[in-house]
Structure formats: C-alpha cells, structure tokens
C-alpha cells in the first residue's frame, strides 16, 4: 500500500524531514507546486506595484510618489509581471504538474534538471528583487538604450537577474521537449496527445530557441555598462535601434510563450465542459506550431516608428499572418460546443473570460497591425490596454481557469463554487473597467509611462483606477478560497469534472507518488467522449 499514498504525504515526521521532502524532491508535481508558490508571490508583488501605479494616476498632481519613484514602480510592475510571473507561469507551474500526467509518464525526462531550473528561477528572482534595494530600475521593462546605459539605477543587477531566469526557462523547455518525444505512454501517438501538450510543446520550442537571444542581448548590455565597449550607446559608437531589434527578437516570441499554453488550457476546458471531442483537432494542434514558427518573424511590429519603411511593410505583412491561426482556434473552440452537453462550472467561466477578452485583444491587435493606425497608437495607452487584454485577459484568465480546473487534482480538495462565481464576476467586471477605459485614453493621444498628464484625461484615469480596485478584490477573494480549500475543502473524487484525459481517467486526486498505479495504455483519442449516436 505504501506505494499508493498521495504524493503530498511526507513519509517521515518532523519539520526537517518535511523540508527535505519538498526542497530536495525531484517529483514534477511538487516542483510544479513550488513553482506555483513563487510565481503567485511574484504575481502578488507585481499586482501591488500595479495598484500603486493606478493610485498615483488618480490625479495629475503628486499623490504618493515623485516622478522618479513612479518610473521605478511601473518598471518593477512590468519586470515582475513579465519575467517573474507570466513567462514561467503556466508552463513551469501547471505545465510541470500536468504534462507528465497527461501523456501517461511517471515524471519529466530529467527530474533533477527540473529541480535545478526551479532553483535557477528562484536565484534569478532573488537577484532581481534585491536590486530594488540598491536602486530600483527606472527604464521600463524594455531596458531601451541609451537610457538604460546612462541611468544611475541598478540596471546591471536587474538585467543579470533576468539573464539568470532565462536559463530556467530554457531548461524547462528542453525538459518538456524531450519528455514529449520520449515518455509518452504506449499507444499515445502524436495525434492522440491532448491539445495542452501540443501547446506546451510549441511553447517549449520558442523558449529553447528565443531565450538565448535575450540572454546574449542582456549580457551585451552588461558588457557595455561595465566595460564601456560600444554596442548600443551612440556615444561609444553603438546603435540603440540594434538593441530594440535584439530585444524584440526575443520579446515578441515570448508573447507566444505566454499565450500558447493559455490556448492549450482553453482547449482542455472547452472539451471537458461540453463533453465533446475538439472540433478540428489537426487545425488546433498545427496552428500552435504555426504560431510558434511565425512568431519569430514579427518582432519588427514593435518598431514601426524607428525602423525603415521597407521593414515596416514586411513586418506588418507577417503580423497579419500570425493573426489567422489565433482566429482559427477561436472558431474551433466555439464550434466544439455544438451539440455538446455544456456545464457552466467554475473553470468554464474562465474559459469564457478568455474567449471574450482575448477576442478584444485580437481585434485591437488587427488594428495595430495596420501600419498607418499603429503610427498613431504606438506607445500610447491603447497599446497598454491591448497587451493587458492579451497578457492578462488572455494568459492570466486561462491561468486562473487552469487553477480552478486542476486544483482538485493537485490537492484532492474542492473549493467553494459559489465563491468562485463571485470572484469571477468581480475580476471580469474589474478587468474590463480598468483596461477598456485605457483604449479611449490612448486613441485620444495619452502616451504611456507618463507620471503626470493633461487634466482632460483625468476622468478616464479615475475610471481605470476604480476598476483596478474591483479587480484586486476579486483576486483577493480567489486566493482566500483557494487557500481555505487546501485545509477545509471537501474531498474531491478522482474525476470531478468527468474529464477524459489521463490525469482524470487514470490517476487519483491527488495522484500517488509515481502518478499511476499501473502504467496507462492509450487506445483512443484524447477526448473520447460518447455520443447518443454511438449508443444507437
């Protein structure tokens, strides 16, 4: 029996043993949970910075901060949210937990490397966080030169932190690619893989291929700042636009590191809560790969106001190409609902939030792809609103959905569905109030990263700040019932949603130490739900 106890149960008593049980584990599930803890901590910190930014913007006058402090806080918000939270969020936490379970494996291919990548992430995050105390960076999360070469804040330390975290991302990606290739259960052919796996696989390709570029870029920036070798700074004979090319060559693909796993989650949620096979499996699976490939060729759309007009033409064209596979997925998800049996359970609510908000992000993305329109909207609040609709409205909503979906699997406990509805409602309303008002601000001409602003913009800023409080309340409620459920939640059956993938059909909630009592053998597709026609 001892082989069949839950992976959460420490076999030996005592605090020291418990610490060892967690910190020295090579179990992908526990590593995923530790990732989840650090990632959510970063999310909360980034969220506090966001709320502070919004409070300062209630009025064009000083409320809490000087201009410099304000610049530092919005920079920290960006860096924490992008490098410490969104990039690792779904793959490293939920991905780590779910990927081996969904392909019927006992663990990832390199369990020790998996633990190493967690520690590398934590070390990088600590370096980044400590840099706040020696002079928080005020460059914006983009570190554009020559401002970043000349500012007196701790750019080198912060950039080094991001550099270190990059390795964690590369190692996780590598681990996932090998795991998907080598450890699939007998019978799980490529076309029988759940779409979450396709999405994580496509994400891993981007992580492994793009992250080295940002590592090199950040290293060059450090070399320039410390050794005075001219690479980006014009005073030393460098070119600041070169930095932008390098930076976005990574940072555009990384947008898809954020959104692809989110799309994978939505595919899982839509099928489970309609008890339907996905409509157009091949289109959905291959559109993930198409997005991953094209994502490497669109970075120039961040530079329509600084690069040549020929480059603008090319990048605008490629940007529109990448829009199509995203639209296809959206159509496929909606078509999947056709003739299903649909249940509006808590995780499915977040799938709806994703579809709603990601559509808004997508439509405004099409506007921004049109060069003539982008020239006007570039670096205004319209951009701020657009990328929050995709990164928060898209990725974070799907991340919340995944937490609600796999929470019973992770802990073996249920959360309160009623509270989940309240939290969803507050987050949905709060998010839209916060960010939709920013579309108006931007197209009316309000630039981003402004400490003070024209009085005529104040009403939009006040609406936005008000929305951020509703949003924050919703998230606080969510964290509360999640925490509460771990200790007092009702015991969950192995398959509370009636899901068809292996983690539901073949594993306990919470799973046993090595995932499955017997190695699963796969005989059908990932979403083999019955239909009334079969029965006749």
């Amino acid at each position: 029996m001892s082989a069949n106890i839950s992976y959460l149960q420490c076999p030996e008593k005592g605090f020291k043993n418990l610490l060892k049980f967690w910190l020295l584990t090579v179990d992908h599930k526990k590593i995923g949970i530790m990732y989840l803890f650090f990632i959510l901590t970063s999310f909360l910190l980034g969220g506090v910075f966001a709320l502070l930014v919004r409070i300062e913007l209630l009025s064009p006058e000083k409320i809490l901060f000087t201009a410099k402090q304000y610049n530092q806080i919005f920079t920290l918000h960006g860096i924490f949210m992008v490098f410490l939270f969104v990039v690792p969020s779904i793959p490293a936490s939920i991905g780590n937990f779910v990927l081996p379970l969904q392909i019927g494996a006992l663990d990832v291919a390199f369990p020790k490397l998996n633990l190493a990548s967690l520690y590398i992430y934590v070390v990088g995050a600590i370096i980044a966080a400590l840099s706040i105390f020696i002079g928080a960076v005020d460059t914006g999360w983009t570190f554009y030169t020559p401002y970043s070469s000349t500012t007196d804040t701790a750019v080198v330390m912060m950039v080094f932190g991001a550099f270190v975290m990059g390795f964690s991302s590369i190692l996780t990606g590598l681990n996932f690619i090998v795991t998907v290739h080598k450890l699939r259960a007998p019978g799980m052919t490529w076309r029988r893989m759940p779409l979450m796996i396709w999405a994580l696989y496509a994400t891993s390709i981007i992580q492994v291929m793009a992250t080295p570029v940002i590592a090199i870029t950040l290293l060059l920036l450090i070399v320039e700042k410390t050794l005075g070798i001219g690479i980006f700074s014009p005073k030393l004979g460098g070119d600041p636009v070169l930095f932008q090319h390098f930076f976005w060559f990574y940072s555009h693909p990384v947008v898809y590191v954020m959104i692809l796993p989110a799309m994978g989650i939505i595919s899982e949620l839509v099928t489970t809560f309609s008890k339907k096979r996905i409509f157009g499996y091949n289109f959905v699976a291959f559109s993930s790969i198409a997005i991953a490939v094209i994502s490497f060729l669109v970075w120039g759309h961040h530079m329509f106001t600084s690069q040549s007009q020929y480059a603008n033409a090319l990048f605008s064209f490629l940007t529109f190409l990448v829009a199509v596979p995203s639209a296809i997925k959206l159509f496929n998800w909606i078509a999947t609902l056709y003739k299903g049996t649909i249940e509006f359970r808590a995780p499915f609510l977040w799938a709806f939030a994703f579809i709603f908000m990601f559509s808004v992000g997508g439509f405004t993305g099409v506007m921004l792809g049109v060069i003539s329109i982008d020239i006007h909207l570039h670096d205004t609040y319209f951009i701020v609103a657009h990328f929050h609709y995709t990164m928060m409205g898209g990725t974070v909503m799907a991340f919340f959905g995944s937490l609600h979906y796999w929470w019973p699997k992770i802990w073996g406990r249920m959360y309160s569905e009623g509270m989940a509805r309240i939290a969803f409602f507050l987050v949905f309303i709060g998010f839209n109030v916060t960010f939709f008002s920013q579309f108006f601000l931007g197209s009316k001409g309000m630039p981003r990263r402004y400490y003070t602003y024209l009085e005529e913009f104040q009403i939009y800023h006040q609406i936005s700040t008000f929305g951020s409080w509703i949003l924050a309340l919703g998230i606080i409620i969510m964290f509360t019932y999640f925490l509460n459920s771990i200790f007092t939640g009702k015991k969950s059956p192995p398959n509370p949603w009636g899901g068809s993938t292996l983690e539901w059909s073949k594993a306990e909630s919470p799973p046993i130490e090595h995932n499955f009592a017997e190695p699963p053998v796969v005989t059908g597709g990932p979403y083999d739900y019955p239909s009334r026609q079969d029965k006749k």
Partner: protein
Amino acid sequence: MEVESLVKEGTEWFPAAATDFSGKVDFVYYVIYYSSIAIFVVLLAVFFYFCIRYRKNKNNQVAEKQVEHNYKLEVTWTIIPLILVMILFAWGFIDFIKSYVVPSDAIEYRVVGQKWNWIYTYPEIGATSSELVVPVGENVKLSFVSRDVLHSFFIPNFRIKRDVLPNTYTTLWFNVDAPGKYRVFCTEFCGDGHSTMLSSISAVTREEYEEHLKTLEAANNLPPAELGAQLYKSYGCNACHSIDGSNLIGPTWLGLWGKEREFTDGTRAIADENYLRTSIIAPGQEIVVGYNNVMPSFAYLTETQIIGLIEYIKTLEN
C-alpha cells in the same frame, strides 16, 4: 491661441483630425472597429446560443453527436480572415507610405529633442524656439535628432509619430488643414521629465506666419532681461525651473540670485554671474543638495543669450 482639446474635440475615439492623413487613419480605423464589433457580436451570440441550446439537463446527458471535422467549414474560416487581413495590410501600408515620403517643396524645420524639451530651428531666419509655428495649408517637414537618449515626437491631431534618435536623423511631414494650436508629446520614455516634455505646433495663415518670423528676429534686439524671459520659455527652462518658488525637477529661479548654494560634494558657493554661467554650460559640475544630475548642457547658446538668462534671473527677487 487656445490649444485644441484632445478629448472634447473630434470623434469618440480620436482627437480632431487636422490633416488629410488624419482622416484616412480614422477611416480605416472605423472600418475595422465596426467590422470587429459585428464579428464579435456574432461570435458571442453563437457561443451563448450553443451554451443555452446544448446545456446539460435531464434530456441532454450525453453529447447529441460528436462532430470532429468539417474541412469545408475550416478552410472557409481560414481563407476568409486571411483575405480580410491582407486587404488591411495593403490599405495600411499604402496610407503609411504616402505619409512617409516627404514632398520636395516642404519647408524643413530642424528639431532637437533633449531631456526634456524640443527646440525648433526656423529655416528662414535661423531663430530657435520651443514651440513651433507653421503656415497652414503648406507642406512642412520636421527633421529630428536627439542630444541624449531616445525620444519620440507625437502629434495626436495629425496621427503621426516618429522616434528621435541620437545617432540618426529621422523625419516627418504634414500639411495642416485648419488653423489651430496642436499638442506635441514625447512618447518614448526618457526619464523623470518624460511626461512634461510637452510642446505645441500652431498652424497660422501665411501673413501671420511672416509676422511671427519678424517677432522672432526682433527678439535678438531686446534688452537682455526681456530676451532672457523669452528664452526661459522658448528653451524649455520652465519645464524644470519654476519662477514662483515651487520645486520642480531643478531648483527654482525665484530668489536664486545672490543666494548661498550648498552642493552634494559638501562645498558651498554664492550664486553669482560666474556660478550661473557654469550652471548653464556645464550643469553637472556642481549639483545643489536635493537635486539629481539630470540637466543637459546649454553650451550652444550664444553669449548674448547666456547674458540674457543671467539678467533675467537677477530680476526674479523674492
């Protein structure tokens, strides 16, 4: 002239259109906007229809039918969006390239961006100013360079924007339809004063423009203190130094003359003429306690202009 309101004038999404190009941008924007709303409403309607029609209930416990493919439908909804976005690509590019190629007869103003103001040089007389006046209905070209970090020149009413780089000249052109005073913002983050790096472009008739040039020329013959008062505004000193005693990014000029200054290296000095001159030409040499070393050098001012500023500061007594 009153500066145009960006919020009150114009449509619900855009500030008032002041150039022919602005109208074109707004048009393609609204085409996408209304099509997006239409598509979005249809998508949501289908979503909710399915959710209600196929909700789980007593009669619907198992999916009615597992529909996994419909290649005709899938190819259709791949091809149609592809065609639509290709049309948008061509449309946006054609409009953009027209706004990018400068007409040969344009009047060329040189614009220098620096932390945290814009300095325009008039081609006719070589005079400089921190706000620009241009003739209405004529082609105008702006040619930019930055003295320090990246900036970006943005005129919302004209729907145009161009990054300003320290190592490359960049250009913009426009032709203003209607007389008016239009906002200019910096849209590339450039530090503490980024949000106060404001300016304006006034479009006036040819006659008023000629008149304006004469006033600018006459400024050179003003008494020094009056010249200084003009330079205080036209070189953007007012972005960081107040004349009413309030603290901005730099120390106030009110009562500065003859006051004892305490520096970050522990030394002290009286603000006399030599101190003021050094502070204009090499501001980083001595930093007053409580302030950051952020002011750019104004060594390119003429001696007459520097004297003008010093004489002006002398007049600002408590």
